[in-house]
């Protein structure tokens, strides 16, 4: 037994050292996101590549649902102490979480990372709230105007129609509706909230002024934009009411070849190509009064409650996800815009730019793209806007009266949140 003692001691030491090194090196980052299907697969590929390069870090990626689901679940997880370590947050809705200290200030991480100089200015800007960096963009987008070439041709619309103003878009939608309405084809999908914001911006207005924070929901140009959007459904009948109550139904109908045009995020490019193939054409958003589009999408933030070593690991992942290599995978698969200045140099991205002409439209729009406001009240405003839009689009309430009421309630809520 005595003779075996050195051996046993040695084995014990090896086992102890082994377990200690496991404990020190292995870090797991719980990461909540909103991507499924082809976007989810692209994210998985990025995570696999990251884990291969960083053997001690595991990214426990969990698909939670859409952006609204993430906000609701994150909020509920906080008092339960079950929040994740990192989370994807939509670019206008992280302000409340930053303001309440839920998200950690990433400024130091950003300043000490070469990524700082590699990100486009718009990508840096969308992550800044109150002068500090809280998220790093992962999927950035602008709305674009998709149309189904085959449907427009069938309706007798000339090739490459002029779609620069509200009137141009309405004229094409009306022609499609008149020619093909009996076959169950609509002229245009009712605009979703992101597209509505874009249409307000290109009517030279906004929902909230991104500099002064002034609420502009009842500004004349905002009212005019809503009047036009609502008229597509209840006055001209060129957009199906289904897309008003369930926004995704408008998109799904477009993908099914039942709608002529759709204004939606560039993030839908991948699935639109898959559904419509060569019939898909991507055009810039109209420039009714000015050319301006909102920047959408989401970025990754780190929760203040995470442990320090987890925060470091999470940052490593965020930085990796925003690198040119990862961004090229993401951009070429989904159609979300490049956020890294070197993405286009990557072979995957270069090939996508070469073979998928529609993918370039959003990039060309960056010259007049604008970050949106993100004060705490935006989360409330966006949640309430759906009801207001339904009432206006379905002709149940007068547009001016609805927006006056909505603006007054938003101002009151902003005051309450500022207390």
């Amino acid at each position: 037994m005595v003779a075996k003692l050195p051996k046993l001691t040695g084995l014990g030491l090896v086992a102890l050292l082994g377990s200690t090194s496991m404990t020190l090196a292995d870090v797991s980052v719980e990461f909540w996101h909103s991507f499924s299907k082809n976007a989810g697969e692209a994210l998985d590929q990025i995570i696999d590549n990251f884990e291969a390069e960083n053997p001690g870090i595991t990214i426990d990626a969990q698909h939670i649902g859409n952006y609204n689901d993430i906000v609701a679940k994150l909020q509920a997880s906080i008092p339960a102490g079950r929040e994740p370590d990192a989370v994807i947050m939509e670019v206008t809705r992280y302000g409340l979480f930053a303001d309440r200290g839920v998200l950690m200030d990433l400024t130091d991480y950003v300043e000490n990372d070469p990524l700082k100089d590699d990100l486009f200015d718009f990508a840096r800007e969308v992550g800044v709230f109150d002068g500090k960096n809280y998220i790093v963009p992962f999927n950035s987008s602008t709305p674009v105007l998709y149309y189904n070439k085959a449907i427009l041709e069938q309706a007798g619309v000339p090739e490459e129609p002029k779609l620069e103003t509200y009137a141009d878009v309405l004229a094409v939608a009306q022609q499609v509706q008149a020619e093909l309405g009996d076959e169950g084809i609509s002229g245009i999908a009712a605009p979703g909230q992101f597209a509505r914001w874009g249409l307000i911006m290109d009517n030279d207005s906004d929902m909230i002024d991104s500099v002064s924070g002034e609420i502009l929901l009842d500004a004349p140009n905002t009212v005019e934009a809503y009047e036009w959007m609502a008229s597509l459904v209840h006055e001209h009948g060129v957009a199906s009411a289904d897309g008003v109550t369930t926004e995704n139904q408008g998109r799904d109908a477009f993908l099914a070849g039942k709608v002529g045009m759709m204004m939606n995020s560039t993030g839908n490019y991948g699935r639109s190509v898959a559904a419509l193939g060569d019939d898909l054409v991507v055009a810039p958003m109209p420039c009714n009064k000015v050319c301006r589009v909102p920047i959408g999408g989401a970025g990754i933030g780190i929760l203040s409650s995470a442990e320090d070593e987890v925060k470091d690991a999470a940052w490593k992942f965020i930085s990796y996800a925003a690198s040119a290599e990862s961004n090229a995978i993401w951009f070429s698969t989904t159609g979300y815009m490049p956020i890294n200045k070197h993405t286009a140099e990557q072979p995957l991205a270069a090939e996508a730019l070469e073979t998928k002409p529609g993918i370039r439209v959003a990039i060309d729009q960056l010259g007049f793209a604008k970050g949106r406001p993100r004060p705490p009240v935006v989360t409330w405003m966006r949640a309430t806007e759906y009801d207001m839009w339904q009432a206006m689009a379905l002709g149940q309430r007068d547009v001016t009266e609805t927006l006056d009421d909505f603006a007054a309630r938003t101002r009151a809520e902003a005051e309450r949140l500022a207390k």
Partner: protein
Amino acid sequence: MLRKLTPYLFILPLMAFLAVFTYVPILQSVNLSFREWDFMSPTKLWVGLENYQLLLSSRDFWNAVKVTTIFAVISVPLRLALALAIASYLVRETIVSRLMRGALFLPSVTSTVSIAVVFSWVFSTDYGMINAGLAWLGFERVQWMQDPQLALYVIIFVNTWKQLGYDIIIYIAGLQAVPTELYDAASVDGGRRLHVFRRVTLPLVMPTTYFLLVVSVIDAFQVFTIVNVMTKGGPAGATDMIVNMLYRVGFTLFDIGQGSALAVILFVFLIALAVLKARVIGRKVHYEA
């Protein structure tokens, strides 16, 4: 001493479970209903009755009360009447009735979310099966989910379709417990079918009816999933029921104080309703033939 404690020890595990998952959360909700909190702020500011005052003076609250009441008043009698009628037919032990029982019960054990998603498409204005059928017959398309006058009835239909199978099975169990001699006696006395149903069947399934009434009223006031998936309370608040409003206020608008106040109001109301039902209807229920 131990003998006295034994029964309490037996129920202790269940009481502990109920305390942790039911009673403590109820008490916490009551506490939160007097505070202003958004789940994130470290402080929960005491605001007294302000949340209740805001709710009672809000247009949305009274709309939700109205919509929920209409839903309950229509859907509960509809469910019970349909279930009893169908159960009276399916109570016979034949192969067809056994198959029908299984088929009708299936929606009760199917995911509510799946049902709501499927019916969203079935009732879709431009792409739905029902409107396609109407169009084929030469009728105009109907805006089922967009017309505030219709949307609530669509929700009532879907909810009834989902819950009916459960009610039928319970009624069948109730009907099977009715002694056959009573029917024989009624038959000998020359009672007509409707008369026998009114004088024999109905009184004897009263305990079942009472049970289903209590359960379905509570269910009607707590409908959420179908509404959340199909309409989110729209259009223009036409299907905004109390629990949907509670979710919106608490989890979308970040006002957990008002959300809790709404939950407390609903809790108190349902208890009051249960007591009222026990006093008014409970006395007419007889458990022996």
